[in-house]
Structure formats: C-alpha cells, structure tokens
C-alpha cells in the first residue's frame, strides 16, 4: 500500500465517523481535532475502523501522539 492509498483508507475511516467533513479540505500537517469535531468516543471508533481496514491495532500510548494526518500515515506505513 503506497502513501496515497494509505491516506485514502484513513480518510475513508474518518468520513465513516464524521460524514459531514470534506476530506480534501483537511490540512495534513495540522492537528486533526482542530479541523474535525471528534470527541473521545469518535476517536476510539476511528481507531476501531482503522483496525478493521488495515489490521493495525494502535496502542493507547501511541494513539495520543497521532494528532495529524501526516503522523497517522507515517505510523500506519511503518506498522503495515
């Protein structure tokens, strides 16, 4: 899976949780939760969706650092 495909998969998981967002308008280097209204339950559901899609189970301690799309893509790329 290349970087673009990975980003598409992550955005797909995200729009499943927050259908109102325009995924193309998100700035990949900016904190995601400043751009999308996600509460802790949404965030957990997003991690569950990522696990289902990519088979990556992100530990709690790591998840807190994955604040931007760029970081998410980097992290998932290494784990795959």
């Amino acid at each position, binding site marked *: 899976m290349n970087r673009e495909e990975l980003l598409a998969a992550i955005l797909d998981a995200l729009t499943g949780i927050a259908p109102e967002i325009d995924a193309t308008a998100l700035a990949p280097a900016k904190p995601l939760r400043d751009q999308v*209204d996600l*509460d802790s339950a949404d965030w957990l559901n997003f991690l569950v969706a990522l696990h289902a899609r990519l088979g990556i*189970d992100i530990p*709690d301690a790591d998840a807190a650092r994955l604040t931007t799309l760029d970081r998410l893509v980097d992290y998932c790329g290494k784990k795959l």
Partner: protein
Amino acid sequence: MIEFRLPSLGADMDEGKLLEWRVQPGDAVKKGQIVCVVDTAKAAIDVECWHDGTVQRLLVEPGTTIPIGTPMAILREAGESEAQVERLIAPAPPASKPTAAPTAVVASVATAPVAAAPAQRRRISPAARKRALQLGIGIDDVPEGAEGTVELADVEQAARKRATPPIARAPAPSAPAAATMAERAAQMRKVIGAAMARSKREIPHYYLAEDVLLTAATDWLAEQNASRGVADRLLLAPLLLKCVAAALRRFPELNGYYRDDAFAAGEGIHIGVAISLRAGGLITPALMDVDRKDIDQINRELLDLIRRTRAGSLKSTELSAGTITVTSLGDQGVGAVYGVIYPPQVALVGFGRVTERPWAVDGGLRAAPVITATLAADHRVSDGHRGGLFLAALRDLLQNPAELTKAMP
C-alpha cells in the same frame, strides 16, 4: 384487547409522524418488538410494543402526525378471538356518553381502519433512511440488501455507485436534502428550547460544584488500556457514569421523577447520557441499570448508544427511561458545565474537561489531572446539604476505581 398507543418519547417530544409499520394485521407481536418507526423533531425512533399479542387492526396511516398517547393499533391477547375484539371496538351505541367508556375513544378512531398495506412493504432501517436524506438519495431507489431489508450499508453502496470520485467521501448533500436538514435543525432547536424553558420555569434549580482529583482514575484507565486492543479499550465516560450510579444508590432522592406535585423514586438507575449530534442539537437516550453492570458492559453499551444516536437508530424506551441525566463536555470542552434538568427528572450531573491543575498534597503543590463535577438539582425534592453529600460521595468513589468498576448486585 390491547390498545397500542404512541408512547412517551421524552419531555421534549409531544408528537411524532408515523413513517412505517413493521407489522401487519395478523402478525404475532412479542413484548419489546419494534412495531413501527416514528419520526420526531430529533430523530427517527424505533417504537417498541410492551405487550405480547396479535395485530388486529392498524389505526394510523404512515405519513400521519399524531400526539403522544394516540391509539395506533389494536392487538388481541392470547385466548381472544378476532370477533370478540371486533365487538369491543365496534362503534358505541348512540346512547352511551362519549366520556363514559374508555372504548369510545378507540371506537371513534377505529371505525376508519387503515387500508391494507401492500404485502411487499420494504423494510428500511431508520439509520438507512437518515443517511439517504443526508446524501440526497431517494430511499425508494436504494435496492434491498441480502436480508431483504434496506440497511445503512445498502444506502452507502448506492451512494458509491452514484458518485465516482477515486477517493470515497461523502458527497455534498443536494439542495433539497440540505433544506430538510436545516428544517430539522430548526425544529430540533425549537423542541429543545421548549423543554428547557419548561424546566427553568417549573424547576427551582440549585447548583453545586466540586473539583475531583482524577489521578487514581486516569492511572487505572491507562493501566487497563495498555493491555487492551482498540475494540475493548475503555473510555473515561463509562467510569464516570458508573461512579454516578454508585453514588445515587445512597441518594435516591436525586434519581427519579417529579410528577403530579410529588417525587417518585426511579425503579432503577437509568442514566440519560447527553449526546451531541454532528449537525447540532442533542439527544439524551438512557443507559439502563448502570449500577448493576460492570465497566466493560457500560463501555460497550455507551459506544453503541453514541453510534446509534448519531446514526438515527434509537428505541422509544431509550428516550423516556432516563431517571437522571449526565452531561460530559469531553476532552474538547471547557472546565465546568451547569446543566438544565430534563423534566420530569430531578437532577443532572455535569463533568467538565479533565485538565492538569495545581493540587495541594501534604503541604506542597503538584500538577494533577482534575475534573470539575457539578450537580443541578430540584429544590422541591432535595436541598444543598444532601446534594453536597452526593457530590462528596462521587468524589470519594472516584478515588478507588478498581472497586467501583464491578457490577453491583
């Protein structure tokens, strides 16, 4: 004979529009079964029937808006024959006083039975209906899935077929759908406003607050979550709910309803959870018997409740069962929330955002995670002294999370 009436859908909803029947005359109905889907200002609701029986007649046509309490269907009980029930609901003789016999009310409605619905009525889940509206897709154009029903996934598949950008994302809602969403938002704001105005008019609120040290709770959660996969991971919210339920056992005067100038204690601890909707507004569906469940079950049920609330797939009992409400601002919010009680309940517990604050320990200061817990309660039922003891109990219980998280008998 059983009259099935539109049940209460919470203090802020006094009417509903019948979207579809899930049963037809002749169908056997079990207690707890979903018999119809009713749209309200807030969401489409799956309405459950609370009797076993057989459907004899449907009294309301889909598309009709009716007030809470309106007879919607006639069921016959075990042992009753069709003819017996027909006699019971036959038009009352002209001599009878219209107010005398309870059956007279039924009769006036029942004399115009609904035309038999088409045999092949499509079954559409409320979540699918709502998503189709968001996406601007006609629900009638969505083909049924494998189960013969139209589910959320079928709508999304139809949306994908229609839109063809390489990266799947929600297409912008079309103009008519957007108008409907805006109308719904305005209507929701209106019903929330009406319920909250009634609360402020009728309920003499008092407010209390307490800062609670959360080191033990957050340490316990981190330790639990370190060894759990994403699917089993615990949130802070279920721990707070569990704590409220445990404290309420000692303060029953905060758990229940104020009706007809008197307080009636709740028959269980059913916590209404304030859940914000992505398009604005909120719904407070109830988690049942929170004190009797362990933390894993509450965590699962809370996540499911949040998901179903936002997908528009709630049951009628969940909307009216709450005996108290808890509102939690979450980690994106601010320090404290002073809530408005949801009538006919008598208390609301609020939690602000967890923040690192200076905390005095053994004559020194250190930074520690702290949450502000608040109580808004009804002075007709309790006073600040008891309310204060309740918040103090909540504070103390949160210092021992491992003990708190078990199910209580």
